[in-house]
């Protein structure tokens, strides 16, 4: 049905042509569900844009063939392509809210496609658009027809995008990271919906994702890409159980999943034994009935509704939940960036909630509670070099100056695995993983006892994530820190934490040891979260 041979895609830039895709070949049969998996910069999205011929300005298919049902996609005229897009081959995208025209009713956006491909007349367009909305299981479709994207949730927007893509009954659906940015439960409903529709209509599909687990769950066959090349292809089980290419192997190993230890994420030669650590009996942090209430436009919003939990000395606690569950608000209150409405935050018996957040900067305990932020890029001052960023807390909170300061910064860099020659670079000159290390080095610089980790790996590729998680694992043993690990990803929490606290709607639904909660969840919501997480096929040999 689709046959790609030696496809090359290049972009014209000021420094000459850059090849994003360097000669890839694969075939897609009718009704087949293909997954293209790769990390950022692997050329997986570019491949799909090239097939649709919707590359950005400067991009073009430099060489190779792409034939769809006998049509040469490389040489077809623009007007022929226009008829193929949406009618034969459709596409859905990541970030669904941005993928919809913000000032046009969603119903009209569906009508535009139907009218374009002569699938509807002015008279029956509305009826057909509503039918398309119903097909993606939108309740009360007639009312949703009138809605604008800003009035809908992210998951709902993605359904609209799917409705637009499927309105004209195309034969092939390309899904480009369709669930990035969606909550894990929404991700599951969206993926299940797409999968059901594709199967029911006998369509072929290409799922482009960075998540090997997701691809293996929803695809018949997987192609792994790296740096514009296909390194391996095969069926998901084979790929997981017996990867041939070292890169696939590393990718498979680095994907967090059930039943592996944190060290197994690393390449085999780097698997040093996990350092021993001791968990004390005394509580380091005692959160008691903590509440946060905002004044919203329409009355008070209870972001955190009185939660209590304890972190013991040396213990790592995971705080898990979907967006809006109050986990970030909770961590902001503990780290004293946000005033609590009521409740206690006892740090070794001293109630931090009574200390005004505004003056906490000069409190001796400031150095004891630090945080690593979600987005490493955003959390580094773009005008400061890595050295300046790491030195900042030392300048404010220690007496180190001059050579001693230099030595300490370099020691921290070494500790976090950041080559010291990179210290004088600005954030924009560092890679994502390096920026994450700078952020961690800065957080541990004042020698904290409690480190709050706010999804520190969410923006990283899985191979980098594996390194950073292991670094965090080493650091806590070495420096005797306790962690509060905030995350939406249960598989990651399982690797790093001793205890887990599951939050929903500002309240704790379940808490306990990682093994208890993960293996025998008592709350239905925890079960839902666990089942929504994509499950990679188990490796026969662990």
């Amino acid at each position, binding site marked *: 049905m689709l046959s790609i041979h030696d496809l090359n895609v290049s972009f014209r830039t000021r420094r000459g042509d850059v090849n994003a895709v360097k000669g890839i070949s694969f075939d897609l049969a009718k009704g087949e569900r293909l997954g293209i998996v790769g990390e950022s910069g692997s050329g997986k999205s570019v491949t799909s844009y090239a097939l649709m011929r*919707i590359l950005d300005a400067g991009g073009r298919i430099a060489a190779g063939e792409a034939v769809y049902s006998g049509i040469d996609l490389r040489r077809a005229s623009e007007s022929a392509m226009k008829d193929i897009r949406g009618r034969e081959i459709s596409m859905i*995208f990541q970030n669904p809210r941005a993928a919809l*025209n913000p*000032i*046009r009713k969603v119903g009209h956006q569906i009508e535009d496609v139907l009218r374009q491909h002569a699938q509807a007349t002015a008279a029956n367009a509305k009826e057909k658009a509503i039918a398309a909305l119903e097909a993606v299981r939108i309740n009360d479709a007639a009312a949703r027809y009138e809605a*604008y994207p800003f009035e809908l949730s992210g998951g709902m927007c993605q359904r609209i995008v799917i409705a*637009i893509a499927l309105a004209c009954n195309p034969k092939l659906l390309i899904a480009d990271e369709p669930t990035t940015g969606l909550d894990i439960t929404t991700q599951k409903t969206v993926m299940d919906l797409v999968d059901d529709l594709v199967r029911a209509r006998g369509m072929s599909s290409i799922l482009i994702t960075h998540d090997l687990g997701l691809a293996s769950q929803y695809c018949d066959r997987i192609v792994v890409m790296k740096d514009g090349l296909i390194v391996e292809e095969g069926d998901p089980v084979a790929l997981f159980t017996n990867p041939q290419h070292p890169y696939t192997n590393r990718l498979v190993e680095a994907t967090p999943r059930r039943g592996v230890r944190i060290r197994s994420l690393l390449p085999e030669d780097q698997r040093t034994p996990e350092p021993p650590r001791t968990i004390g009996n005394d509580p380091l942090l005692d959160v008691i009935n903590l509440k946060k209430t905002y004044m919203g436009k329409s009355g008070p919003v209870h972001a955190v509704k009185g939660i209590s939990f304890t972190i013991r000395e040396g213990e790592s606690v995971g705080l898990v939940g979907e967006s809006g569950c109050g986990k970030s608000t909770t961590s902001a209150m503990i780290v004293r960036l946000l005033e609590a409405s009521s409740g206690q935050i006892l740090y070794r018996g001293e109630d931090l909630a009574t200390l005004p957040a505004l003056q906490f900067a000069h409190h001796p305990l400031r150095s004891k509670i630090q945080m690593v932020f979600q987005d490493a890029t955003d959390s580094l001052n773009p005008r400061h070099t890595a050295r300046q960023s790491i030195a900042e807390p030392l300048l404010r909170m220690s007496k180190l100056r001059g050579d001693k300061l230099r030595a300490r910064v370099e020691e921290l860099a070494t500790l976090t695995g950041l080559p010291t020659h990179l210290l004088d670079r600005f954030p924009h000159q560092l890679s994502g993983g390096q920026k994450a290390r700078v952020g961690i080095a800065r957080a541990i610089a004042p020698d904290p006892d409690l480190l709050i980790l706010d999804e520190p790996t969410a923006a990283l590729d899985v191979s980098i994530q594996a390194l950073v998680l292991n670094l965090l694992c080493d650091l806590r043993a070495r420096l005797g820190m306790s962690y509060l690990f905030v995350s939406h990803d249960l598989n990651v929490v399982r690797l790093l934490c001793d205890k887990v606290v599951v939050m929903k709607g500002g309240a704790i639904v379940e808490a306990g040891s990682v093994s208890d909660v993960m293996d025998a969840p008592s709350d239905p919501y925890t079960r839902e979260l666990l089942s929504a997480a994509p499950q990679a096929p188990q490796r026969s040999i662990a």
Partner: protein
Amino acid sequence: MNGRGAAISLRIAQAIPVVIGVIVISFLLTRALPGDPAVQFAGAAATPESIEQVRQSLGLDKPLPEQFIIYVGQLLQGDLGQSVSTGRPVIQELAARLPASLELTLVALILSCAIAIPLGILAATRPGSWVDQLCRLLVTAGVSLPTFFTGLVLIYVFYYLLGIAPSPLGRLDFIYLDPPHVTGFFLIDSLLDGDPATFMGALRQLILPAATLALFTLAPIARMTRTAMLSALGADYIRTARAAGLNRGKILYGYAFRNALLPVVTTLGMVFSFVLGANVLVEKVFAWPGIGSYAVEALVVSDYAAVQGFVLAMALLFVVLNLVIDLAYSIIDPRFGADAK
């Protein structure tokens, strides 16, 4: 869409504190600044007695809050004081001259939008092409142009050198009679009167000053159109539309341009501010009998009541224009009023 109706009412209500602020500032400009307003209002040829008389008639011997109440009371009755130079009430003078200024401003704005918006779109759809280069040159050069200087250059070239423009004196040459007053806009009134000769005469007078103003406002509008169009064309929803096979015209105008229009409309508020200011200079250069040249003449003879009345009138006009722009925005953007957060 109840929220939207509420948001629109809220926007109209928000104009009220601004109007109050404008009145306070113009009161402060009149009464509270250094210098003796009585001396200023009495005019250049004042005697100590006449100054004292002015002081009392303006209530300047009373405390400031009381003066403010009197001032507001007078405003509510449409009393902006007497113009010393003409002896007529300032409000009448302004009302008589306002249509001339509005006609000039609106024609200039229509002219510049008609050129700038297509230019901006062309530049954005063909980045790097000669249209784009031309647009960038015009944009940078355009904001650098002192309007009064551009006006003089146009007069020199089209009146003195080429002799194709009429003498730059007023709205209509002496050979024509003013058309009967209906709207006060000569172009419209002459057409209503069925007098094409007068229409052409008025148009010939109008072209140079309107072109001067248009050249000045071209730059910000073209720049914003280009930028907004570029960012709209780079947006994710354009990619969705392309992937769905929509044709180029639909994508360009139905999707990109309508979104790009939002920042352009917002920019128009700033453009109005510029154009109303530049109006004063252009009216002086072309001896255009609008409120701007009236204010300049009043300045020369220290007719302060006239100047303050002019400032207040311009501000109120601008508040209304901004309101109109925001309401236009609310029509285009369904999100208006929904972004409560």
